[in-house]
């Protein structure tokens, strides 16, 4: 499951899908690691009212598929589900849900961490923050999915 949605996120459906996939492979599924990115009440000391996320949906889903392919090249018996929410999100709501399934726990954490690091590097998604006293687009990484250095950096963080 790789998707962009305007609806609230839930990890349950993702968990069910990746567990079933990995159950049928290799040693089977022994670990599920999940990550929810959540709207924080402050950004660099400023009080946040809410966020708006925007995505290039068609390209984002392809990018998520690339991230899954990269993860499975390194962890062949893993499975990964990733859904990003767009639209207006209130404080405390989840903007991204990732679930990794593997045979053993260390790999589940690593796959999950790799996926979120790669999303931050290359997924065509943008965050617009609305503060009490203004608003600002957040601009992070220049997306280049072929940049091997970025890929290795994400892998190093995932396997630290």
């Amino acid at each position: 499951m790789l998707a962009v949605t305007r609806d609230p996120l839930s990890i349950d459906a993702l968990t069910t899908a990746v567990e079933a996939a990995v159950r049928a492979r290799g040693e089977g599924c022994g670990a599920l690691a999940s990550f929810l990115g959540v709207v924080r009440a402050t950004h660099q000391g400023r009080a946040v009212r809410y966020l708006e996320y925007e995505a290039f949906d068609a390209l984002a889903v392809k990018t998520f598929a690339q991230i899954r392919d990269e993860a499975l090249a390194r962890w062949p018996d893993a499975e990964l589900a990733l859904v990003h929410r767009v639209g207006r999100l209130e404080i405390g709501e989840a903007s991204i849900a990732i679930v990794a399934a593997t045979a053993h726990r260390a790999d589940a954490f690593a796959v999950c961490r790799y996926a979120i690091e790669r999303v931050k590097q290359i997924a065509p998604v943008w965050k617009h923050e609305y503060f009490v006293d203004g608003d600002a687009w957040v601009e992070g990484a220049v997306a280049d999915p072929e940049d091997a250095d970025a890929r290795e950096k994400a892998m190093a963080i995932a396997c630290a």
Partner: protein
Amino acid sequence: MRVTVRLFARLRELAGREVWTTEVPAGATVADVWATVTQAHPPLAPFDRAVSCAVNANFSRMSSPLQEGDDVAFLPPVSGG
């Protein structure tokens, strides 16, 4: 030839437009289209070294040649997650 130009996020806001079609010479590259965009919308020029591009919803290179009818998207630095 005609191509579609598509802007996202802050690029769209700075330009004040999202999607339009434009005429470029045969053999034009993505960079040539970006040059016409920044010429028409100078506030986008500072993104010269920080813009990513996609052609027909696939990541591309500024040096890539275009075909008639291509959909060329320009992406500011990303901030998902």
